[in-house]
């Protein structure tokens, strides 16, 4: 009897399936302790969204600063021409502060946040990604201050150059349309750069030796084999579920993990479907209503069997193996 949906393996031959796409973004990096850790490269969409959020915040901060300084200038009495009066000097000082503040917002925003413990700007934090040092070969590297500086200096030309093209052209009375086209080509060149390399690097990442990965976040789930059901005793009926070796031999690690997922999600109909499938497979006839206890018992005993095999170097990848 063929297994039903929850146990069906994802079709590996199709490279477009979500699983395959996820695999293409995974990179195994070995820590100095020799433990391989999986990194998932950030999707290009998440990175673009993070950038837009950051830019919006920077523009907001710039406008806020400008308003604040204008307010302060208003306080001293706006006076740009007349210079030796105290008010004139105060306004001059404010203009200096304003110029420096805008320079800092433009250049130091990314720097400041990416050097922090999260390695992410507010935009990146919202989209759940962060900057990390690119692995050299297989070995993980330390993210250095210089690397963060380098990747952000390059951002300046990737992003702001087209704007400068257009401004320069219009100030100097040049061909604004031409400049706009040049700016567009320039922008596309850099915006499309991450599409043409395996690790989705933009130019700044390439030069700095960094990449952008998904920030890991996971809660510790409940241990599944400490409940009553896992001991084989059903609380609802008091029945003891005990499975023979032959009953357990039909499934492998892949099916065990599907079962784990079903148990953790704890959806009534999924539990019922899976319990029915297993019963069909091993030729049992369990009544309805006690599926969770049945599955917990089956899970614990199957895992015990497979883990024992594991310790002796015998692994069973799935029901076919």
């Amino acid at each position, binding site marked *: 009897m063929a297994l039903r949906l929850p146990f069906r393996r994802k079709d590996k031959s199709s490279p477009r399936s979500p699983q395959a796409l996820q695999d293409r973004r995974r990179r195994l990096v070995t*820590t*100095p*302790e020799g*433990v391989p*850790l*999986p990194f998932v490269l950030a999707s290009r969409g998440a990175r673009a969204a993070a950038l837009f959020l950051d830019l919006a915040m920077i523009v907001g901060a710039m406008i806020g600063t400008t308003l604040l300084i204008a307010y302060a200038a208003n306080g001293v009495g706006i006076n740009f021409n007349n*210079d*030796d009066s105290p008010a004139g000097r105060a306004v*001059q000082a404010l*203009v*200096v502060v304003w*110029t*420096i503040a*805008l*320079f800092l917002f433009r250049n130091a925003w990314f720097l400041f946040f990416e050097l*922090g*413990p*999260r*390695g992410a700007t507010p935009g990146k934090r919202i989209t759940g990604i*962060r900057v*990390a040092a690119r692995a050299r070969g297989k070995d993980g*590297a*330390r993210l*250095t*201050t*210089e*690397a963060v*500086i*380098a990747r952000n*200096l*390059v951002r*300046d*030309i*990737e992003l702001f*150059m087209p704007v*400068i093209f257009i401004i320069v052209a219009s100030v100097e009375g040049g061909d604004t349309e031409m400049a706009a086209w040049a700016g567009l080509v320039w922008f596309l060149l850099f915006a499309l750069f991450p599409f043409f390399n395996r690790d989705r690097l933009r130019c700044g990442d*390439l*030069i*700095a*030796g960094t990449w952008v990965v998904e920030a*890991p*976040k*996971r*809660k*510790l*789930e409940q*241990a599944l*084999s*400490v409940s009553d059901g896992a*001991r084989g005793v059903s609380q609802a009926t008091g029945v003891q579920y*005990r499975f023979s070796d032959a009953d357990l031999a039909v499934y492998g690690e892949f099916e065990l993990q599907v079962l*784990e*997922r079903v148990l953790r999600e704890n959806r009534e109909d999924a539990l019922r479907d899976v319990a029915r499938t297993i019963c069909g497979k091993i030729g049992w006839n369990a009544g309805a209503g006690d599926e969770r206890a049945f599955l917990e018992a089956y899970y*614990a005993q199957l*895992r*015990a*069997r497979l*883990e*024992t095999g*594991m310790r002796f170097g015998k692994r069973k990848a799935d029901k076919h193996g």
Partner: protein
Amino acid sequence: MNSVTTGIAQKIGGWFAKPTEAAVAAEQAALRSDRFRLEREADWKRLEAVLKRMEAGRTRGVSDEDLLALPALYRTAASSLSIARETSLDAALVAYLEALTQRAWFLVYGPRASLWSWFRGFVGGGWSASVRGLGIDLLIALALMIAGTAVGWLLVASNPDWYYSLVPGGFADERVPGASREVLHGTLFGNQDQNGMSVFAAGLFSNNAQVSIMCFALGFAFGLPTMLLLVHNTALLGAMLWLYHGQGLLLDFVGWLAIHGTTELFAILLAGAAGIHIGRAMAFPGTMSVMDAAAAAGRRAAQVMTGVVLMLIVAALLEGFGRQLIDSTPSRLTVGSFMLVLWTGYFFAFRRDAR
């Protein structure tokens, strides 16, 4: 830890109070991976709490004990992960440990220094070391700048019309070929009473910094745009030199320029060299892969560039204040050459033993 282990012991004790033989065999095996987990769970939770606080930027809120224990906790998590992968089929547990280890790895192997202590190391040797590390690229950039100046001079000397195409309109105002000696002299001296110098200086800095960042960042295209930018900017200089030379004001112009120019041109030289450094590393990566070569060069160049921005701040201050306040050619030349000696000495004579 102790309370946890005794708790587990009790739990396990209760578990096997009345076991049947088969159940014992099955349950003991099932338990082994989960028992492993329960024994270490407290350490993981502790690590997670420390990570959470540090990631939120509240390092001060973490107790000294926890902070000192962080590397050990990280290694515990890493080794737990290795063991779990070999012995446990609990996918959620392995995923949790992977994420936990990764988060700790980011912190333990993250940017080592705070911005401030990084800056101290940078000023106290890191900067000059990375400037020296540029090596031959400094000479290439210098040669290009000299060549650019010569080209600018020669072009304008052969045909003064070139002046208008080399010097952008906003720059040139009254300084054009054919201007009288008095006009040119007036641009160099006697601006003490000019106002708005601080604003001027801040604007200059912002502008110059942006240009030099561009010089650096364009290096990824094998350094070619950087070279063009260097030549173009110094050609402008050559044209101006020619203009003042024509009215016998060459030395005065050099003095006017030198007071900030030695710092500013030095900074542009470094930015250009940094760009060429990256370009050269990508074109001729040697035994490394292109990616690794670019990354190594990029990190060194980034350090140089941070210094360039600092130099440009100094240059803007000198230009905004010093030039207007010091109004005679000899003292301008003195300040200019003093700055040149200072920078050269700092970069090439100041060496600190690498530890």
